[in-house]
């Protein structure tokens, strides 16, 4: 083969995976940006974007042009290095988890034995990015937003990881492919619906989505940690948020909703990805629905929910799972 002598297949595979990951990141940001605005409109009985393109389909493209054209302002006395790298630190790690997510039995960048831990480790960098952004902005509201984000993420990481452990106890593997394969026939949401609920609530909080969007909290902190960001810095934060939402929902689907499993399709080894995306977007729409239903929680309510309800429940759940497995 010519290509074999030209490029080693392993290198081709890496290139292809990288391109696919980036396409998914930007495609998802486009779809989510449009969906969110359109659904937000519908929930409030207004049409949402309508002017650019049919039903406002090109709105996001036009917004992108607008954001690129905006002037980048660095606030006086801000830390220029931290201020500049914060959006990149937020966005760059968002691409990495896509390498280990199994979209279908054969569509997966790499099946790491520690895939789950890899995702959790990489996603946690976002907290750092928010902290950098809030600290570097030289703005007290940004700093408050960043501090809130850290407290929130530290708090919600615990119930999330504890419910993850329940799943891991059952499947005995950290490989995402293995976890999905273990759910053939019986999805884990049917076995442990409580864990699913806790995990989903925790991921909503981890992605800083309403009603847990305290780091942004536009009515209290103007825009929280991203107050001072304009143009592409701002849009990188947004793209990162949508990507983290996608990753969080992918994780929920992989852990509880049976991943790519669904009614059989032709060429199932590849087309099963359709079921995966269907489930992920159903969850994303649920997140949008939640966002446009509930008002933002107060900070003590946020922490109470976590420490008083989610943590004890996930601990008990872990204990029960372990006992049941031993029996």
């Amino acid at each position: 083969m010519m290509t074999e002598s030209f490029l080693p297949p392993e290198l081709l595979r890496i290139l292809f995976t990288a391109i696919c990951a980036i396409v998914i990141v930007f495609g998802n940001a486009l779809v989510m940006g449009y969906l969110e605005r359109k659904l937000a409109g519908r929930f409030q009985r207004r049409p949402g974007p309508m002017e650019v393109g049919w039903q406002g389909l090109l709105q996001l493209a036009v917004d992108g042009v607008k954001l690129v054209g905006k002037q980048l302002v660095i606030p006086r006395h801000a830390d220029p290095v931290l201020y500049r790298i914060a959006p990149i630190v937020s966005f760059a790690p968002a691409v990495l988890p896509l390498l280990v997510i199994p979209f279908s039995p054969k569509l997966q960048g790499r099946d790491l034995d520690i895939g789950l831990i890899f995702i959790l480790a990489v996603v946690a960098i976002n907290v750092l990015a928010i902290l950098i952004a809030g600290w570097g902005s030289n703005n007290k509201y940004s700093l408050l937003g960043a501090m809130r984000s850290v407290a929130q993420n530290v708090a919600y990481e615990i119930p999330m990881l504890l419910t993850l452990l329940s799943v891991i106890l059952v499947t005995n593997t950290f490989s995402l492919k293995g976890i999905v394969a273990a759910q053939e026939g019986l999805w884990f949401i049917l076995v442990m619906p409580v864990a699913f609920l806790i995990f989903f609530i925790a991921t909503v909080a981890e992605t800083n989505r309403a009603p847990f969007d305290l780091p942004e909290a536009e009515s209290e902190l103007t825009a929280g940690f991203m107050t001072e960001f304009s143009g592409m810095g701002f849009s990188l934060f947004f793209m990162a948020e949508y990507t983290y939402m996608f990753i969080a929902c992918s994780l929920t689907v992989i852990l509880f909703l049976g991943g790519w499993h669904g009614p059989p399709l032709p060429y199932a080894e590849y087309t099963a990805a359709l079921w995966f995306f269907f489930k992920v977007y159903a969850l994303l729409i649920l997140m949008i629905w939640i966002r446009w239903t509930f008002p933002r929680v107060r900070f003590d309510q946020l922490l109470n929910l976590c420490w008083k309800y989610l943590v004890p429940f996930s601990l008990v759940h872990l204990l029960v799972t372990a006992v049941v497995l031993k029996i």
Partner: protein
Amino acid sequence: MKDYFAEIFTGGKSLLVGMLITLREFFRPVVTVQYPREALPITPNYRGHTILVRDEEKPEKHRCISCKMCERECPSNCISLHGEKREGVKGLTLVRYQLDFTKCSLCGTCVEVCPTDALDFSDEYRHVGFRRDDFLYDLLARVEKGQ
């Protein structure tokens, strides 16, 4: 302990009720009117700026006899009109009727006082202009143009 679980139950239930309410709103029709392209019908009680009523039976298409009652009664002095005597025509002929809409308070006194019911309110609500002069309406020109 009882309160703890009761709170979970009532809290969870209230969240579900909230979700169902937004879901119901989601499937109801959109109430937005795409304004420049579609507009709602205006109530007949709407009082826009005054116009001379178009009267197809009279050659001048309006009933104004240039009596200047409206000009005199107007509390904000926004009406100025002028009639002149013409050969072979009974009474005065209206040659100019100007409404300064920047001053008009839409009180309707001119409409009430008009002896021939020549004045009425229009249903015009889209007033746009870049200069003050844009709101000096020539009502005579309007009635002659057929507006």
